[in-house]
């Protein structure tokens, strides 16, 4: 057997960064010279900002290389695999020496993401080798009752990771209490929150963990059918889930009398979503599985009584399920030793936006926001000034700079007016306009409103109109008050979570950044220099050297001028993309 193993990270992020080319290069080199090393695949370990990632494991241990391209692949083969001489400057993570990127992992505790980036997600044996399906086997071998499983989950303090934060064990207890010949366990993998991708990474990186969590959940509540409702936009996740489901069936983890437990029958199938944010809401999701328009319905009856096809049903999020096998295998204390008084365990966050080290991190609940952004995330891109972080997507809100020392758990985040949501953290710097951010989310919720409730349907539209007007310099006195009033009405008069939370981004930005709204309305200025209608780019003739870079970079050919002579921006054509501004090496372009 080969002593050296080369593992390429093939998550969606890695593939987008060119990991397939890198994988093929290794394959080509291996085959051309019949080299003696094993080539393998894994998913993302969360370090998306250094993708493509390649791990080399040999007798000395493991080294992960970042930003690998085809040329670096050749170097890695020649120097590390053949020459046994690791290229230290490319290494981003190893246990043998400190790397500049090491801080990204300091403070992380990986429970939900325990296998992501460490196993080949298409190989069930690699999941089993890291303790996979042990929790399920434990249920059978130790004759643990469903009620004991539920108690374990309650003791662990696990709360719904989809955003609601409802205690998972309690939810299971409600579902168990309702008897029926058909009962459903449903995995919500619709992840519609723009800016969040932890579910995608989990499904791509460790599909068996989610499936095992569902099987345990089904045992606990007495379900005999399972459905994974997954976004069609995640083709790789769906492909790997299908492979994992087939393998689980072959190995007897799904089917009849699972693990020899008499009467415990379960199969799981995937239902592809069709692109509607509102389907992340439980009742809308079930309507969609039934082949209807995904419109939410009134509760009660709750899904635990009458859910999918009018049968008792239980819906949990991907990350919630991924935690379950770990808790059952290791006991509730292994989980609740992390976290704060009311928020136990760990939480996965998707760090994106104007952050240096964007990617997935899993930290204990209660980790200070400052640590997540500055220690793990490495701070703000180009060392600009941190302004706010948006948490919870369209249902959430913006946490401003002066609250950066909060400890991130359900309670403290809610107190700011934002919500934990699924864990998308979009970092914003001084160049982000907060009015525009509010407008962006309203545009999203307005489009995604199913239209059932009048206030959600028309109220969000009117709010969007006001916000658009403000960002275009047409704001009027009284607009802020009008927005606040409408926000309350929409919140109070909507049936489902989408409408009830839609005004949150507006309310939190008004709360913390009222002065920016006022600057737009009164002075017709965008303090962040972001709203394009309020901006003009101009060339300073004293600084322009006629290097032509701006004209070359301009995607719409709005800049003309002869080489070595002062250039000029044609304002009628300019789309204000800022490519000229960002590329000028002489500071000759001004933004006003």
């Amino acid at each position, binding site marked *: 057997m080969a002593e050296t193993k080369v593992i390429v990270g093939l998550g*969606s*992020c890695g593939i*987008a*960064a060119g990991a397939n080319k890198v994988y093929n290069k290794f394959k080509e080199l291996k085959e051309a010279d019949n080299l003696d090393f094993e080539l393998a695949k894994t998913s993302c370990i969360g370090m998306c*900002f250094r*993708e493509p990632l390649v791990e080399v494991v040999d007798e000395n241990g493991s080294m992960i290389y970042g930003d690998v391209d085809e040329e670096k692949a050749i170097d890695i083969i020649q120097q590390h695999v053949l020459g046994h001489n690791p290229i230290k400057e490319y290494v981003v993570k190893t246990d043998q020496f400190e790397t500049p990127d090491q801080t990204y992992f300091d403070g992380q505790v990986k429970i939900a993401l325990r296998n992501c980036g460490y196993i080949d997600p298409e190989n069930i044996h690699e999941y089993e080798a890291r303790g996979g399906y042990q929790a399920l086997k434990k249920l059978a071998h130790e004759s643990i009752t469903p009620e004991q499983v539920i108690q374990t989950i309650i003791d662990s303090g696990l709360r719904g990771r989809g955003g609601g934060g409802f205690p998972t064990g309690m939810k299971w207890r409600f579902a168990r209490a309702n008897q029926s010949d058909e009962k459903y366990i449903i995995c919500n993998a619709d*992840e*519609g929150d*723009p*800016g*969040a*991708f932890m579910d*995608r990474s989990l499904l791509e990186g460790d599909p068996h963990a989610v499936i095992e969590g569902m099987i345990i959940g089904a045992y606990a509540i007495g379900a005999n059918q399972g459905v994974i409702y997954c976004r*069609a*936009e*995640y*083709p790789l996740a769906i492909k790997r889930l299908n492979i994992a489901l087939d393998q689980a069936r072959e190995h007897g983890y799904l089917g009849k009398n699972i693990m020899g437990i008499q009467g415990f029958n379960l199969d799981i199938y995937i*239902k*592809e979503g*069709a*692109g*509607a944010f509102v389907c992340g809401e439980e009742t809308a999701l079930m309507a969609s*599985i*039934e*082949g*209807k*328009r*995904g419109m939410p319905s009134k509760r009660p009856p709750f899904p635990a009584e009458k859910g999918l*096809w009018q049968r008792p049903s239980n819906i949990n999020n991907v990350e919630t399920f991924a935690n379950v096998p770990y808790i059952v295998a290791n006991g509730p204390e292994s989980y609740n030793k992390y976290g704060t008084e009311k928020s136990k365990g760990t939480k996965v966050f*998707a*760090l*994106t*936006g*104007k952050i240096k080290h*964007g*990617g997935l991190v899993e930290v204990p609940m209660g980790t200070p926001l400052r640590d997540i952004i500055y220690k793990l995330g490495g701070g703000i891109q180009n060392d600009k000034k941190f302004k706010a972080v*948006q948490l919870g997507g369209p249902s959430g809100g913006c946490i401003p700079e002066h609250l950066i020392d909060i400890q991130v758990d359900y309670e403290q985040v809610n107190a700011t007016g934002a919500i934990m949501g699924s864990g*998308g953290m*979009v970092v*914003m710097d001084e160049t*982000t306009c907060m009015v525009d*951010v509010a407008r*962006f*989310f309203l545009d*999203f919720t307005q*489009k*995604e*409103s*199913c*239209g059932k409730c009048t206030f959600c*349907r028309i109220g969000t539209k009117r709010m969007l109109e006001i916000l658009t007007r403000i960002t275009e310099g047409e704001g009027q006195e009284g607009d802020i008050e009008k927005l606040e009033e409408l926000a309350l009405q929409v919140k109070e008069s909507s049936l489902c979570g989408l409408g009830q939370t839609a005004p949150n981004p507006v309310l939190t930005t008004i709360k913390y950044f009222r002065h920016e709204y006022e600057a737009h309305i009164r002075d017709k200025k965008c303090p962040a220099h972001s709203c394009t209608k309020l901006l003009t780019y101009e060339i300073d003739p004293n600084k322009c050297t006629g290097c032509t870079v701006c004209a070359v*970079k*301009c*995607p*719409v050919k709005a800049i003309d001028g002869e080489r070595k002579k002062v250039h000029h921006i044609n304002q009628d054509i300019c*789309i204000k*993309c*800022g*490519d000229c501004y*960002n590329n000028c090496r002489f500071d000759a372009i001004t933004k006003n």
Partner: protein
Amino acid sequence: MRVQRLPQKSGNGVLADDVDLSLIEPLIQKYKGKKGNLIPLLQGVQSVYGYIPRAAFERLADETGLTLSDMYGVATFYAQFRLSPVGKHIIKVCHGTACHVQGADAISLALKEALKVNDGETTPDKLFTLETVACLGCCSLAPVMMIDEETYGKLTGSSAVKIVKEIKIKETQQKG
């Protein structure tokens, strides 16, 4: 509201019903009579033709007993379904939060300008359809676009236009 995403006129003068309906026969057989089959049926039809032709709706209605109104109700509700033909390559420009704060608007504007189409439209040569999507889940590489199955990250207006132009050059070379 969701149904406003529908283009006002469908077909663009193309004979929308000029499709080979036998292609969806296996699909109908697979899902006929199964509960909750409507969305998978529509998804299947769309993967065959790239959109859902009117003739296919009528065929589904005849074969499965689903009503046309139910089918249109669902097809117009979900963002995934298209009722008019699309170009050979579909450009999905991500407008998720991370992409938005990193300048996704500039990408869309540059592409609209270069291709001379609006959001949801197809170029006259039927090569490209430009679409805006909510989130592709590649937020750490923002701003991002996806052309067919390929995702491109860390874009600027000019790099996005360059990628599209390269595809166009390849297409013309293949023709020639």
